[in-house]
């Protein structure tokens, strides 16, 4: 078990290293650095001004050296101007001239500085992950029970009318990407001119102009049913269909097992068979899928957070990519690697507990 954990953590480190290097290389291409200089110091700068800006801000060194600085294995760049003022990576991060020449990278716990948000990367990531955590929590609260109920109901009598109806629903929901369902929801539920809101408003059933808000910015301060329903529903529906399909497949398989048939022949009530005998075995497969669904949801989070302007992790990733915010993008990749591998780890370990036939050696 310990060896297994160590191997997994080792794998995580290697993956993170490779991924961050790729991201670093891509964001440090000369054209990208020019974008950065122009977004930082004026979009209408001349080439000479760009070169001098890059030089003054430590972007002129070789790429590998700067990657080393970011990791914390190389000392940060230092620059002493003619008037004696000292600038440098560590000077800016630590806020003191004494730090010049020290190492200040990931290994020392310095995540760097976000050029887009003008703040420490660690602060940005922490705040945004918190926001996404809330969103994900509500997504899981909506998605998991819904998916399991739909899957179990559909799978307990394969081929029945209930099965066909629920399966159609599940397939439709998982076949509709967030950028389609999100827009549909906004048009149907969050517009005062089309959809059902004008009708409801006319009948006097809703106080405001719209049933739900098509914009979740205010959820940062205060989550309400009105501003959070649509983003949660958009993400949850997409994952729901998939998990429901897996649950259904697993349920139908269990329902054909010998011991279930025996129980039925003994005259045990159908509801009891499903709840007591079939359910636990049927939940093994969905459990893995739900865990693997979490990193997959991070994908959906990018689209729906941007669509609903909810400043969470996905939105931050988008902003960082669009503005070539190098250190923020790197930190986001590290977070993504950790999320993927940790959820995998949990699913592997959870599997052992759910299925006594499996051991981790």
């Amino acid at each position, binding site marked *: 078990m310990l060896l297994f954990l160590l191997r997994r953590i080792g794998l995580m480190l290697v993956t993170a290293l490779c991924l961050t290097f790729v991201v670093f290389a891509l964001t440090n291409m000369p*054209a990208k650095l*020019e*974008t950065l200089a*122009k*977004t*930082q*110091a*004026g*979009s*209408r*700068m*001349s080439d000479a*001004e760009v070169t*001098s*800006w890059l030089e003054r801000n430590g972007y002129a060194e070789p790429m590998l050296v700067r990657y080393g600085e970011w990791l914390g294995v190389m000392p940060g760049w230092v620059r002493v101007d003619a008037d004696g003022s000292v600038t440098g990576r560590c000077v800016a991060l630590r806020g003191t001239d004494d730090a010049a020449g020290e190492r200040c990278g990931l290994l020392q716990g310095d995540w760097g500085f976000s*050029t*887009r*948000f*003008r703040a420490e990367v660690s602060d940005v990531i922490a705040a945004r992950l918190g926001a996404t955590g809330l969103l994900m929590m509500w997504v899981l609260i909506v998605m998991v029970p819904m998916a399991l109920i739909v899957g179990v109901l559909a799978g307990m009598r394969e081929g029945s009318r209930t099965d066909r109806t629920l399966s159609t629903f599940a397939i439709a929901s998982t076949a509709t990407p967030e950028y389609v369902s999100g*827009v549909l929801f*906004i048009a149907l539920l*969050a*517009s*005062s*001119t089309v959809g059902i809101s004008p009708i409801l408003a006319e009948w006097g059933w809703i106080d*405001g*102009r*719209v049933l739900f*808000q*098509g*914009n979740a*910015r*205010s959820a*940062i301060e205060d989550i309400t049913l*009105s*501003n959070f329903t649509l983003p949660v529903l958009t993400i949850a529906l997409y994952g729901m269909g998939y998990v429901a399909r897996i649950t259904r497949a697993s349920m139908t398989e269990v329902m054909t097992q010998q011991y279930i048939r025996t129980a039925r022949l003994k005259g045990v009530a159908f509801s009891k068979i499903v709840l007591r005998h079939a359910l636990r075995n049927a939940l093994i497969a969905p459990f893995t899928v739900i865990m693997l669904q979490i990193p997959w949801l991070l994908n959906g989070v990018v689209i729906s957070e*941007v*669509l*609903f*302007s909810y*400043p969470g992790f996905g939105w931050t990733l988008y*902003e960082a990519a*669009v*503005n*070539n915010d190098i250190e923020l993008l790197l930190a986001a990749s590290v977070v993504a690697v950790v999320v993927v591998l940790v959820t995998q780890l949990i699913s592997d370990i959870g599997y052992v507990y759910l299925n006594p036939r499996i051991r981790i050696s």
Partner: protein
Amino acid sequence: MKDLHAKREAVRHPVAEMYARECAAGKLDRREFLTRATALGVAVPAAYGLLGLAAPEAHAQEPQMGGTLRMQMAIKAQRDPRTWDWSELANACRGWLEYLVDYQRDGSLQPVLLESWEASDDATTYTLHVRPGVTWNNGDPFTASDVAHNIERWCDASVEGNSMASRMGSLMENDAMREGAVEVVDDLTVRLNLSSPDIALIVSMADYPAAVVHPSFTGDDPVANPIGTGPYLPVSYDPGIGAVVERNPDHTWWNEGNGAYLDRIEFIDLGTDPASWIAAAEAGEIDLNYQAQGDIIDIFDAIGYPRSEAVTAATIAVRFNQDNAPYDNKDVRLALQKAVNNAIVLELGYNDLGIVAENHHVCPIHPEYAELPPIEADAAAAMARLEEAGHATTEFELISIDEPWQAETCDAVAAQMRDAGINITRTILPGATFWNDWTKYPFSATEWNMRPLGVQVLNLAYRTGGAWNETAFSNEEFDSLLDEANGIADADARREVMARIETIMQEEGVLIQPYWRSIFRNAAENVHGAEMHPTFVVDYVKYWKS
């Protein structure tokens, strides 16, 4: 406001009086007259007085105090004001950083931190009178030396991206302020000695990077240490998310009673997708948007946010870069130009929300605009000319940014060229990459905001080596004529030079400039004073809610 200017009303300026006669004779419209007269130092009521009119009373209703205004606007990372490249950066700070003068919606200049100014008859000496009784919000008095300090900052061309330096040329020498260019005469008077006549100098001081900062200001964050003269203070500022500004209770503002009506202004950055602005408006999360374009204007109208319009000299320049073949060939440029009917571009690309332009980047609302014979599109002649130049089968590529109205405008340009039989492809780049090389694309479209005077954009964009010269246009005759025009305070005399300048622009086929844009903003009905401004100014100090 009237009492503040009473002292200056006696002042008469010979050129301004001439303008007034022109206006009376119908040679000038009122907006042109106001721009020109106030640029020469005639106060607004006095300028109206020259016309025999009373200055319009701006407020039919008495403004109400209090309330919170929420506005959709991009919030970008702050930097040194003189290097601002987006009006939004300036707008967020307008509550505490004020300007020497303001450019008004009607085309006039309003003195702010200056009480008045006078120009010598040849526009080489300006006398600035600093408004008495103004204090910084840290208690320091605002004096002539603060004005001199700011002008010196603007003149420092060694600062990367300092666009004010390109406007202060007549006060500069060797990338810095010229010795003796700015004299502090007494606490409230500054004299500017120009090396060459510059009629745009005062108007330039109303431009958004000309925010007046405290002498202690260094670095690049006017939000972190918000010392200013205005009535508000920043509460928070998060790029990409939003900013909050509140009235400063510990500061006596010089213009108490004539603004600062709102308690709190919240700017909300909702990204670049107008659909989310609409969603936010539907949800009642915003009271007004920053700027609406295309169909979005109508949608906002429909959900109860009526539009306000500003006619501007803002435009789109579908320009050739003469450093790139085949656009170094004048015949190719002229042929491509000839294939395009600008009126059709305006209709298809911008829903007719503007007026047709004439490929020379001087707008009829500019005081020195000279009318030239109309240009005519002729597809057959265009193709014939292209064949003559040996480029009949050359594949041209027109690049634009992904913003809908700009992409659609370029589509309309390219479609007409295709109709003429020219082989042209279109490329659309996302905003983040487009601006990397905007001055170097062989053939692309650039959005240009307006400048109050016609010579201003020409100085920036078409002079040899100009700061934002994206056409690589370099023409000796043009440059020297422009120098000449820059020194002629008399607009009629300047117009004669301008006619020649405009003709050179057309003859050289510098760009396809299809139309002048009107710009729009939608605001809820209870928001007042927030009409769209031709230069995108969001002077929230003057906004109020009922």
